[in-house]
């Protein structure tokens, strides 16, 4: 994301390119708050150029081989390493099983940016408008975090705490994102509305488990509407409890548009966002329930 910088040059910093995960963690431990990790650098360098960040140390992860893999295991799910680029991921066959993520990844920016930008970077940037977090949340993904002190896992939903704020302590590193195996009879999609805008004005990820004509379970997550991705609980309940879910779709959209937090900003007004939530809900449910 860029806000537009008056500057052409970066602030001064020391560049590190560790070769192992251990080395990376040691560097992070040593420099703490003074350090920033760099994956693709698309977001980091833009922030630095705009002087919104001025780390004294930049730790480039691209030299660490074990962070560069996407691995799918039948029954367990998909684990995406911290330096896997969006295009590498898009080309990875098993991604298709994770419909919402597949949609989100393939439509980010343009091929040049997708060749550099990573999924983990997109998530860690935690900008309200980015695309992968709603999809990851709808799919129940978790973040794998390491530091010299140990390991922990956090659901993506809790990992994003605010705009540009994530649940990560100095010294910690996100090593991967894990997306669990989709449930049986489930289907997920992600849709964004970004006509006349680089970034989404509103995005939605839906993950539905069908049971005959009824919806057994559904997760509806909205991106770009507020400072963090919004999960629409009441709307999901309305859909689950409906005997004839096809009859209540607009109702579900309306509930979602009223229940989630939505703001006005440079891309859209709150009012229009709420309207788009209603419309996109219809669209995404048509995709996942059809």
């Amino acid at each position, binding site marked *: *994301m*860029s*806000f*537009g*910088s*008056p*500057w*052409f*040059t970066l602030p001064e910093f020391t560049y590190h390119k560790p070769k192992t995960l251990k080395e990376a963690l040691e560097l992070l431990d040593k420099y703490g708050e003074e350090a920033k990790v760099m994956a693709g650098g698309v977001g980091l360098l833009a922030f630095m150029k705009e*002087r919104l960040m001025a780390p004294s140390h930049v730790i480039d992860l691209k030299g660490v081989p074990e962070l560069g893999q996407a691995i799918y295991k039948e029954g367990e799910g998909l684990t995406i390493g911290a330096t896997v680029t969006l295009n590498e991921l898009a080309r990875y066959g098993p991604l298709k099983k994770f419909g919402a993520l597949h949609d989100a990844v393939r439509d980010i920016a343009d091929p040049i940016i997708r060749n550099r930008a990573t999924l983990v970077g997109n998530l860690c940037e935690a900008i309200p408008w980015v695309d992968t977090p709603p999809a990851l949340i709808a799919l129940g993904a978790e973040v794998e975090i390491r530091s010299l002190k140990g390991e922990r896992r956090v659901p993506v939903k809790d990992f994003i705490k605010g705009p540009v704020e994530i649940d990560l302590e100095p010294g910690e590193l996100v090593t991967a994102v894990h997306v669990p195996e989709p449930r049986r009879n489930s289907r997920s999609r992600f849709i964004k*509305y970004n*006509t*006349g*805008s*680089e*970034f989404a*004005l509103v995005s939605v990820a839906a993950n539905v488990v069908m049971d005959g004509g009824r919806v057994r379970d559904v997760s509806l997550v909205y991106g770009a509407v507020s400072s963090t991705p919004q999960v629409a609980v009441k709307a999901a309940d309305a859909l689950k409890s409906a005997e004839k879910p*096809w009859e209540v*779709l*607009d109702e579900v959209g309306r509930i979602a548009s009223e229940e989630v937090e939505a703001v006005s900003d*440079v*891309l*859209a*007004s709150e009012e*229009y966002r709420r*309207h*788009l939530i*209603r*419309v996109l809900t*219809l669209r995404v449910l*048509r995709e996942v*329930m*059809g």
Partner: protein
Amino acid sequence: MAGKFVGKPIPPQDAFLKATGTAPYNYDIELPGMLYAKLVTSTVPHGRIKRINVEEALKVPGVVKVVTGKDIPYMVGMYAGDRDLLAIEKVRWVGHPVAAVIAESLEAAERAAELVDVEYEELPAVFDPLEAMKPGAPLIHEHMEKYRRLPVFKPVPGTNIANKFRVVRGDVETALKEADIVIEEEFHIKHVSHAFMETQNVIAHWHLDGTIEIWTSWQNPNPVRQIMAESFGIPYNKIIVKIPFVGGGFGGKAGLGWEALVAVLSREAGHRPVKLVLSRKEQFTSGACREGFHAFVKAGFKKDGRFIAYDVKYVLDAGGYADYTVNVGRAVAYSADGSYEIPNIRCEAYTVYTNKVPTTALRGFGYSESHWVLEQVIERAAKKLGMDSAEVRRINLIKPGVSITATGERLREDVGNPRKVLESILQEIGWGKPSEKPKEPWKIRAKGVALLVKGPAQPPKAPSSAAIKFNEDGTINLLVSTGNFGQGTVTALAQIVAEEFGVPLESVRVDWIRDTHSAPYSWQTVGSRGLFTDGIAVLNAVKDAKRQIFKVASEALRCPEEYLELVNGEVRVKGKPWMKIPLKDIVMGYSYPDGTSIGGPIIGRGVYMSVHTTNLDPETGQGHPTIFHTYGGTGVEIELDLLTGEIKVLKAVQAFDIGRVINPLLLKQQFHGGFIMGMSIALFEEIKFDERGWVLNPNFTSYYVARIKDVPPVVEKFVETPQADGPYGARGVGELTMIGVAPAIANAIFNAIGVKLNNLPMTPEEVWKAIKAQRPDLIEKAVKEYQKKMKEVKAVA
């Protein structure tokens, strides 16, 4: 006359270098010993500079000097003369340059610029031009009467009005009373950026002997020299302005840019060359954009469709300075009547200062704004009258040789054929035939048309000249100062020369670099005038060169001049093709076998001078403002998604009476490029400001410019009604191709669902808001249709 080159689809001469990425732009140029400048800009919208502390900045290694406004208290400008180089005493918008750091490297300059500490005493600011016009509003330019401006501009000292301009003809008050219907509306346009790829950048070297050498990414070198010379009180020949390849201009590189500032920085830095490059953000916040615009109209029509009265007030939101925008305020008023004859008309245009980013010309300036209003007024009136809007247009269209414009100009017989333009658009777009029904019932399709006319907005005296210089081998250097920023005009000029001398196109070269020292004078390359004015100068230069050539050849061949002709690069005796001399044996002088020689190197010179333009009457705006009128129009078929408010253009038709097509390939490119730019401005582009006047989207991720995926097929229609005094009968067209797009789209929506779109841009949100306010039922119906369709899909599955 079908020529060998004239009328042929010849690719632009610079295409090869551009396509291979090797064309040298100003951005690429580095001079030995060059320093780098960085601007420090205001963070308050309006304020007095209390203190500028540069101590910390000077400590950064590599910093040579920090210059502030009080060190260089010059005022500059093209028309209003209201610009400082760096803020003197006060700042007028967020982004107003306050100081410039000069350093050995860009890194050092930027680091130091961050450390310059400016303290302001904030003054009350005003952001809305309608507020700014009121008595008692905070004054932004307290002493505008002192500025060195062109006398035709009329500021109102003691207010924020930088220029007031009126065009009055007939008796609007009475006519409005006599009208059977009156349309009363307000229209608004947001600020937009030129969005050229190459941001403004300048290298200046103030040499020790007082010569100022300028390299700049600009449209035309002469105004830069003129304004600098006049402001600094320096002889014109001491200033040399050079322009290499330019990455887009669109009016945003006309007049004067940063050249005067950087020149002074070079002097202050010990006469070393200095380079200043704006970042995209600086381009948005410190450079100038297109003004914000407001129009308040009353238009009276008779039952039979006659447009009898038009009363308009325009207010232009000019920002912190209005240097070129005062001229936009003129153009918008004298173009108010468009392609129609309106007997009673009164337009008042106010160009008003506000504490926002400054503004300037943008492709088609004034005319884009006046047509956004006028063409919608016609559409609204037609509906109210129960008539076909095409018929209302036909009824009111100007008649060549008969009609009189708003400024009282009787149009010439050969002015062009707007009727033919209109009919060809209507035919191509299938006017009157309903659009195919979209498969998705929540969408609708519709057609819309807008006509337009434009001439170059320029002072009455705005000459051009050209020189043709031959080389020893008979090849030709064509010297012009015609700007070359993507339009391809110079290719067309080369075609003309090759045609006239019967030499291969490759034999005619126009240099990449425009330079005030060696190229003949041309006022500016703006207003779609280049091919017309400079083309005439070139033809006159050809004539002059031919005269000299025939004189020598006549002597050498011992044959009277009238029996000679120039064919395939040879002078021949008519009817005796074996009696000939190749050009190369004449152009450096002709030598007889014994070595005695006659003649000498040939230099052809030619000028263009506008003959029928005049100043406009200060009270009534009556007079002849432009050197030609090109009529044209745009038709579109669009699809509107009622669920989101999104408009998609499915098909577009562009038709223009360009008099004579010199190069159909370049012309098509203009038709396409202009359409895309027009559509982008119609549907997407808007500079947004917050409540303190900060630009919210100074970048291309949140200031959206149309992408290739947004672009529909464009059909081009050439209408050719030659203008007797145009080069081969041609007229200018460059800017015009974007003007009709926005009103055509708005008209399509209005035709289909009666929803009025009075505000540009017509973003999905803007359109949705308009539908919600005017026809909320349509949105609810669309949602129902959508659900119904989903159930059908489900049933099938």
